[in-house]
């Protein structure tokens, strides 16, 4: 049986992309898989009794060493902010390429805590900062210092001791450019070093809380129970900075989605599913209910999505337990078709993610296809004709061409870069100033404008000739030729319309990171948790791959 890949015009809609969930393809899970046989160590732990100072953690294999350098600083409560406008954080981190010398640590001590206004070097690979969940951190310190384990209900509500507020890589602030390291096999997957940083930061938070508790009361203090540690992750506050990324990296986006779609296609094409694989799938679906029922958010929008997901997942469990036989041919195809007919988008994508669990032999080869050398596709094939370009647009952007951009609500918003923080923002075009400095992220509108212009041109005109007097369309012409080859490279939706929910774009990216429990704080930023339930670094050599579905929180 040959199953077609799903239609980009369905999958690349924002509401669908905003329903994606983590899976075996997610970067934090593929990171753990890649680094499970590396040697982990804590190389330096020089904190004072209050937990301020430096620490270094590393992963090593052969001659290759990656070292997380941590700086924990005292800040005032009023200085603590998750917003990108903050200038001080409880802790700041960088992932150093190799073993940092004393000079390196001194240099980094002056730069890393400054984050965006500091300067890093090509020897550093990623940069981040994090703030304590003061409520949880202090509670854990107090409990441990008194010889008790902390209140699990409080921990479950928050899920972490620290949350990062940005993780930078790929040449930002002087960090190493991607081209310097791209041939390393162990990082042949997107955001692998960012994942390493976050993972090691998680361990630092446990070590720091134990250290502070011990110094508070050396006689009675106990260490945080390992199982409790495992059920804590690292929080992350994420704003609009992530949204333009997926528009600005079309072939990378394609490779992420194409890997997911290829995995689904191959799983649907399995004729006979082995009992153990069916059992693993059903087990993960059932156990994942804990992730949904423990999903805390104040956002009404997300609460409704969770309610609907929970209701639909229960309906699905009832279906597979009472009306479905995995011994039938092509059972996952039948499951998928049933999902399309009977449950919401969020539930479809949730189950699609879980379908991947039994199939390492399908997923692992796809993981290595999830990076992209985007420069290879940058040049425009200018010898092609206007007629060819027109046909590409008609075929690849059919729903975009139906949008009426003469209506005010179709172009209600505009994307811009804030002068204060050099971060992306979204504002109402008709109520705020600045739309003349709009970023080129209104792809749907610009593609439609281009199409209307092409209709007026001679069909055999070359793109070179067209561009010589229409350079304002160059950015979307480039994209149209990219989407011709990469079907999932474009969001098939209006990114400036009145009804846009920007967190759909964030959720798409975060689901590929491997985030759990999206907690929108508004329609433009959200909090998530990463690595909650993940094995600790000392357990990596032999861990349960389905840990995601077995957290206690």
């Amino acid at each position, binding site marked *: 049986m040959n199953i077609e890949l799903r239609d980009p015009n369905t999958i690349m809609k924002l509401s669908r992309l905003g329903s994606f969930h983590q899976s075996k393809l997610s970067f934090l899970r593929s990171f753990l898989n890649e680094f499970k046989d590396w040697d982990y160590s804590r190389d330096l732990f020089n904190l004072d009794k209050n937990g301020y100072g430096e620490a270094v953690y590393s992963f090593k294999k052969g001659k290759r060493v990656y070292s997380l350098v941590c700086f924990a600083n005292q800040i005032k409560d009023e200085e603590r902010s998750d917003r990108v406008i903050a200038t001080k954080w409880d802790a700041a981190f960088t992932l150093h390429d190799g073993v940092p010398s004393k000079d390196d640590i001194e240099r980094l001590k002056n730069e890393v805590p400054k984050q965006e206004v500091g300067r890093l070097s090509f020897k550093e690979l990623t940069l981040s900062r994090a703030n304590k969940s003061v409520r949880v951190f202090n509670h854990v310190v107090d409990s441990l210092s008194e010889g008790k384990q902390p209140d699990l209900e409080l921990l479950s509500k928050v899920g972490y001791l620290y949350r990062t507020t940005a993780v930078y890589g790929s*040449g930002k602030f002087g960090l*190493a450019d991607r081209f310097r390291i791209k041939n390393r096999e162990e990082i042949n997957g997107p955001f692998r070093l960012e994942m390493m940083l976050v993972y090691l930061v998680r361990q630092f938070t446990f070590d720091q809380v134990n250290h502070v508790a011990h110094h508070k009361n050396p006689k009675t203090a106990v260490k945080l129970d390992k199982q409790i540690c495992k059920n804590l992750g690292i929080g992350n506050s994420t704003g609009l900075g992530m949204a333009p990324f997926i528009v600005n990296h079309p072939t990378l986006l394609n490779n992420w989605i194409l890997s997911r779609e290829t995995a689904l296609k191959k799983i649907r094409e399995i004729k006979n599913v082995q009992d153990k694989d069916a059992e693993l799938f059903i087990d993960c679906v059932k156990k994942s209910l804990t992730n949904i029922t423990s999903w805390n958010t104040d956002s009404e929008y997300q609460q409704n999505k969770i309610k609907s997901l929970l209701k639909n997942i229960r309906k699905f469990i009832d279906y597979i337990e009472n009306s479905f036989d995995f011994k039938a041919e092509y059972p996952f195809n039948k499951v998928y078709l049933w999902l399309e007919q009977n449950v919401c988008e969020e539930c479809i994508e949730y189950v699609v993610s879980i379908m991947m669990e039994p199939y390492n032999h399908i997923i692992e080869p796809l993981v290595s296809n999830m990076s992209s050398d985007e420069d290879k596709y940058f040049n425009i094939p200018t010898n092609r004709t206007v007629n060819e370009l027109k046909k590409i647009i008609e075929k690849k952007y059919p729903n975009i061409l139906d949008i009426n951009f003469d209506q005010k609500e179709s172009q209600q918003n505009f994307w811009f*870069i804030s002068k204060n923080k050099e971060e992306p923002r979204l504002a109402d075009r008709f109520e705020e100033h600045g739309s003349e400095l709009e970023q080129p992220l209104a792809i749907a509108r610009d593609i439609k404008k281009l199409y209307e212009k092409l209709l007026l041109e001679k069909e055999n005109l070359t793109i*070179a000739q067209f561009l010589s007097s229409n350079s304002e369309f160059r950015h979307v012409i*480039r994209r149209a030729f990219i989407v011709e080859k990469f079907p999932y490279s474009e969001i098939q939706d209006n990114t400036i319309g009145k009804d846009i929910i920007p967190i759909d774009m964030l959720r798409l990216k975060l689901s590929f990171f491997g985030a759990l429990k999206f907690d929108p704080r508004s329609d433009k930023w959200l909090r998530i948790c990463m690595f909650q339930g993940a094995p600790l670094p000392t357990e990596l050599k032999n861990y349960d791959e389905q840990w995601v579905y077995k957290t206690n929180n």
Partner: protein
Amino acid sequence: MRSLSEIETAVKRASRAVGYSWGNSEEIGKSIRQLELFGFQGIKNLNKYYKDKSTKKFEDLNIINEINETSSDAYCPIILGISFLDQIKSVENFKTIKFKKIAYPVIFLSFLSRASEISGNKIHVRLDQNEILLNLNVNICSNFLDQDIPEFANEIEIKFIDNKDSFTESEWNSLYKLAEDTFVEESDSLKEGAAGAGLTDND
């Protein structure tokens, strides 16, 4: 040290700010990044050009011919470079392409370097008395090493170099003969057994 990623982003934004379209600004970012990677002063020259641009008029050349002479002070190196990139399939048929007066020719070079990669041919450039070889966007060879590339070039001549060997057949044969000394003369038994197919592989 600024990373190439920072260079590309800052150049793209600055180019948009001085009035280029977003698509053209992306091209400029990519080209200046490449220049800096090759050790040429892309940022310095682009900065100067954008300052000059606010007070002087430069001509945009959108269609490239074999001989191109500007009626103004100089051609804009950016529009010229982008036009060259876009029209590479037609301009590579010209034996020689001549330009009179290009401002900040090093900026133009960055586009020519990328054009060399697209065309699959090395490009030889003469900027007044100086010679430059653009090598498939892998590197740029020039005799400018100890001096800045001038801010203005009066006579510019461009030639696509045919893909041909830089050595004679006899030089190749001489070297190949040496390489053969690493091969083993096959005995009858080696002929029969070493390749696995036996002495005859006909049906």
